[in-house]
C-alpha cells in the first residue's frame, strides 16, 4: 500500500442500490432520484429511533425483493449509523439471517463500509456483500444537540442531519459500476472546536485524503467526471477548494459536496446543507449511481467525511478530529 491507496485487482461491482428518504429530502433537489420515501418520518413507530430502524428494515426488504435474493444469498452486511453503540444497525440486523459487521466513522461510515467490503471481495472468499448506513434528523438532534422542542436558533454554520437509509449491494460478477481503488483516511485534527462548524473541522481531513489519493494513483482532479466530498456543507466545500489550492491543486466544476446537494432552501432553514451517515450514501446510491448506469458519468470519486466527536468529548473541551475515506468508482467499460 502506497500513499494509503490500494488498487483492487478483481472486479468489485455494484449489483444494485436502494435508497429511502424522509419528506424533507424528497423535496430537495435530488428528490426524484430516490427509490422510496416516507411521508411521515415517525413511520407510526413509538420513537424516532424505532423509526430509523424501521426504515432500515424496509429498505433491506425492498432491496432483497428487487434483486430477488434471499437473506442467505448475502454473505455479510456491513452497516453503520450515528446512534450510540450503533443500535440503528444492530436492531435492523435482528430481522435478517445475514452475518453482520457494524461500523462507525460518523458521517464517513459509508466510505469505511465500502472499503472493507471491497477488501473482502478482493480476497475471493465472499460472493455478495451489503453495505448500508442510516441517519435520522430527530435521533441525531436529541443525541448530539438539544431536545427537538427547545427554542434555539440555528447558527449559520450548522447542518441538518439527513433522514434516510441507503444500501449498496456489492458482488464479483454482475453490474456496470466498479470500485477500482480506494484511499484509507487518517484522523486529522487542525484544532477546530466549534461543534456547529463541522465543515471547517472536516475539510482538512478531506484534503489529506484527496492529496494521498492523487499521489497514490497518479491521477489529477480532471481525471474524474465528478468528485464528491461527504458533508462539508456549502461553506466547508468552499474552504476545501481554498485548502487544495494551497497545495497547488485546483478543484474545478466537477467538484461538489453531498451535503450541499441535499436540501433546497435558504440558509436560515437548512444552514450549510445536509450531514449524517446517510448523506453521502444517499447521494451516491441515487443520483450518482443512476447517472453512472446511464453512462452520463463514468469516473466518480466519493470522499465521505466524518467528524469523530462525541457529546462528552466536546463538553470536556476537546477539539474535533475528523476522517475522510476516498472510494473511486468507474464504469465497467472504462475499467478494462
Amino acid at each position, binding site marked *: 500500500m502506497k500513499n494509503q491507496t490500494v488498487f483492487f485487482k478483481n472486479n468489485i461491482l455494484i449489483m444494485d442500490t436502494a435508497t429511502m428518504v424522509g419528506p424533507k429530502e424528497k423535496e430537495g433537489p435530488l428528490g426524484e432520484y430516490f427509490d422510496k420515501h416516507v411521508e411521515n*418520518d415517525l413511520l407510526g413507530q413509538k420513537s424516532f429511533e424505532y423509526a430509523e430502524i424501521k426504515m432500515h428494515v424496509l429498505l433491506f426488504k425492498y432491496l432483497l425483493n428487487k434483486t430477488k435474493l434471499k437473506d442467505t444469498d448475502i454473505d455479510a452486511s456491513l452497516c453503520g449509523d450515528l446512534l450510540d453503540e450503533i443500535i440503528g444497525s444492530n436492531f435492523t440486523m435482528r430481522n435478517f439471517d445475514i452475518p453482520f459487521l457494524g461500523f462507525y466513522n460518523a458521517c464517513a461510515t459509508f466510505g469505511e463500509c465500502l472499503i472493507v467490503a471491497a477488501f473482502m471481495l478482493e480476497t475471493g472468499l465472499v460472493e455478495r456483500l451489503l453495505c448500508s448506513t442510516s441517519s435520522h*434528523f*430527530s435521533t441525531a438532534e436529541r443525541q448530539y444537540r*438539544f431536545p*427537538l*422542542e427547545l427554542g*434555539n436558533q440555528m*447558527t449559520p454554520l450548522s447542518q441538518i442531519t439527513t433522514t434516510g437509509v441507503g444500501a449498496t449491494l456489492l458482488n464479483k460478477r454482475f453490474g456496470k459500476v466498479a470500485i477500482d481503488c480506494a484511499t484509507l483516511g487518517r484522523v486529522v485534527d487542525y484544532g477546530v472546536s466549534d461543534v*456547529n462548524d463541522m465543515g471547517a473541522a472536516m475539510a482538512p481531513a478531506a484534503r489529506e485524503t484527496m492529496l494521498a489519493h492523487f499521489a497514490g494513483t497518479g491521477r489529477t482532479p480532471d481525471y474524474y467526471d465528478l468528485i464528491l466530498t461527504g458533508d462539508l456543507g456549502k461553506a466547508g466545500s468552499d474552504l476545501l477548494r481554498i485548502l487544495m489550492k494551497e497545495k497547488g491543486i485546483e478543484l474545478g466544476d466537477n467538484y461538489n459536496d453531498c451535503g450541499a446537494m441535499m436540501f433546497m432552501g435558504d440558509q436560515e432553514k437548512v444552514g450549510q446543507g445536509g450531514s449524517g451517515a446517510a448523506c453521502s450514501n444517499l447521494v451516491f446510491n441515487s443520483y450518482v449511481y443512476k447517472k453512472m448506469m446511464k453512462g452520463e458519468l463514468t469516473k466518480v470519486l466519493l470522499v465521505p467525511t466524518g467528524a469523530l466527536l462525541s457529546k462528552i468529548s466536546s463538553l470536556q473541551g476537546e477539539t474535533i478530529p475528523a476522517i475522510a475515506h476516498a472510494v473511486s468508482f468507474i464504469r465497467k467499460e472504462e475499467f478494462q
Partner: protein
Amino acid sequence: MFLDYLQVFLVGGVICLLGQILINFTKMTAARILVIFLLLGVLLETIGVFQYIEEFGKAGATVPITGFGSGLAKGAIKGALSDGFLGAIRGGLQAISAGIAGIIFIAFIIGLIAKPKTK
C-alpha cells in the same frame, strides 16, 4: 398607558438584545445565557439597582430571567433581615417557589401528554 407598555417593551427588548449580543459573539448555549442573566439579576438586586429598572420597565424587567434572579436576592435579603440565618438560607427559594413549583407541575403534565415533533 401606551407609554407604560412602550417602556416595558423597551426594557424587555434591550435585555434580550444584550443576550443576543452575548450569543452572537461567544456562541453560548441557552443554559449559560439563562444562568448569566439570572446572576445579573441577583447582583443588580443586591446592590440595589434593580428596583429602579423595575420601576421604569415593570414586566420588562421582571419577565426576563433577571427578574427571577432579583426575586431570589430580594427573598434572601428579606429573609435574612427578619429571620436571621434560616431566613438567609430559605428566603431566596421561598420567593420564587410559586414559579418553580408551577413549572415542575406544568412540565410533568405536558411531558406526559405531548409528543415532540420532527422539524
